[in-house]
């Protein structure tokens, strides 16, 4: 368990520490190379280089406005309309930040779940099948199978299996968020991006989401933005610490929380903001 108060300050601490993942030993699912984000003339994210290992959970932590959500949303180009994203985002040896890439096709492989649950005003079942149908899956058995497995993976099946035709809006916030996760994984993406998926939920729902993530890790590469340091510590394998629009430290989660190498990280995980 993490005991941040034991962290100590030494004189020769570096400003930045970005761990490099050895691609011979570990499979990298996604890597950001010199990614910068501008909103108008304002730079919201400085050059960022991060690699994400396959079938692992990576947490992005930092204070509000530190650029972690901006970075996450750039990874499947949800920032296209609001800002300019420079640099390369490599996925399957392709730079998905280039104009040759079909954005909609790419997002089928790199899904995203948002802070506030956003189910469609449709039935629970249709919430999951809608996108599948649009992507050309018509076979009824296949659709039913995807509904069941995705709901099971999102740990929602037992609660809704008898009410699949009820409106998704009748579910509780926590259930809605798990439905949204089920909806995303029903597309069989490679990578799941989660933007503070539990921050709007009560502790019990939040704990359920965490369990769900740990299960999903076997099949998906997960990148999660969180405010909650305990959550990051509990679920993730790697953690990146963002501060004022740049990554200051990226390392194994246990190292970040026990032996961080950058002073700012120590302050943040100790709870000293200032």
């Amino acid at each position, binding site marked *: 368990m993490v005991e941040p108060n034991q962290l100590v300050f030494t004189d020769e601490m570096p400003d930045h520490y970005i761990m490099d993942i050895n691609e011979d030993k570990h499979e990298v699912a996604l890597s950001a190379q010199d990614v910068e984000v501008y909103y108008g003339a304002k730079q919201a994210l400085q050059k960022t280089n991060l690699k994400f290992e396959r079938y692992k959970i990576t947490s992005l932590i930092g204070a509000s406005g530190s650029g972690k959500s901006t970075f996450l949303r750039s990874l499947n180009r949800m920032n296209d309309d609001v800002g300019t994203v420079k640099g390369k985002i490599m996925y399957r040896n392709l730079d998905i930040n280039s104009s040759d890439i079909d954005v*909609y096709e790419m*997002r*089928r492989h790199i899904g*995203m779940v*948002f802070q506030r649950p956003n189910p*469609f005003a449709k039935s629970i079942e249709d919430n999951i099948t*809608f996108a599948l149908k*649009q992507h050309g899956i018509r076979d009824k058995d296949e659709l039913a199978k995807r509904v069941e497995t995705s709901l099971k993976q999102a740990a929602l099946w037992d609660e809704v299996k008898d009410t699949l035709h009820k409106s998704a*809006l009748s579910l509780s916030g926590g259930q809605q968020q798990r439905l949204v996760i089920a909806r995303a994984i029903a597309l069989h993406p490679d990578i799941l991006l989660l933007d503070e998926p539990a921050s709007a939920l009560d502790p019990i729902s939040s704990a359920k989401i965490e369990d769900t993530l740990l299960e999903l890790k076997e099949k998906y590469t997960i990148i999660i933005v969180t405010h909650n340091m305990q959550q990051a510590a509990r679920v993730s394998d790697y953690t990146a610490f963002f501060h004022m629009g740049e990554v200051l430290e990226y390392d194994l989660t246990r190292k970040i929380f026990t032996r961080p190498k950058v002073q700012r990280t120590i302050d943040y995980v100790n709870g000293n903001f200032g």
Partner: protein
Amino acid sequence: MNAKQVDKIATGILYTIAGFVILVLLALLGYILVQGVPNLSWHFLTAPAEAFSAGGGIGIQLFNSFYLLILTMVISFPIALGAGIYLNEYANQKSKVIEVIRTMIEILSSLPSVVVGLFGFLLFVVQLKLGFSLLSGAIALTFFNLPLLTRSVEESLRTIPNLQREAGSALGLSRFETIGHVILPAALPSIMTGVVLSAGRVFGEAAALIYTAGQSAPALNFADWNPFNATSPLNVMRPAETLAVHIWKINSEGIMPDAAAVSAGASAVLVIAVLLFNFCARYFSKVLYRQLTSSK
């Protein structure tokens, strides 16, 4: 006089003004209904108008009004829907060009309807030689209707939270699919409210029609539904005086002896129609309200 006395006097004056206004408005409504409703009969609502003798009805004009309304909606709704979608879903909201476009639409909405009608007259009746016809009238009414309908579509779409759009994008759905399957269904009750309200406006419009759809109502053969025959009710190339135009026409140049009774009856029909449109609009907004409140 101290402040309290002034307050009392002012309150009294406000009561008087409000009372007077209520009186005027109710008297107006009451006058139209009391004068008009006794004239309403099945014969009046279905018989053709008489030019020189009493006892004529408003059958053809009533049919024309509804048919023209439907034609106008069929033409204007898709255009307004498209334009509203572009403005709210595709357009870059900060762009100067879009700002100019919005201003132009606003200007169109504030043009006097007689000017819109004259333009329709010039373009369709004179230049394109369509003659006084339902089609010319429907297009003129479309011009008159487009700006408000576009605005109401746009505003209906704006009430749908962005979260829904992001949900669609995150699932690899194109914006178009998300709009068609998620945003529009959610905005539908509100869009329908706008459509019904604009229908009331279109139904009662006359100034834009007198030189486009014309001021004559040739006899129709209600057994002939082939739109290509001259006397078919469905023919869109025939001149078609509507109810509102009829009221204006018989009052400004009518020579029938019962013009006052006919216009009173026709006015009552118009007002009742507007009432009905209003009730429908209220019904749709109630549905909308229920939808919104059941989601939380």
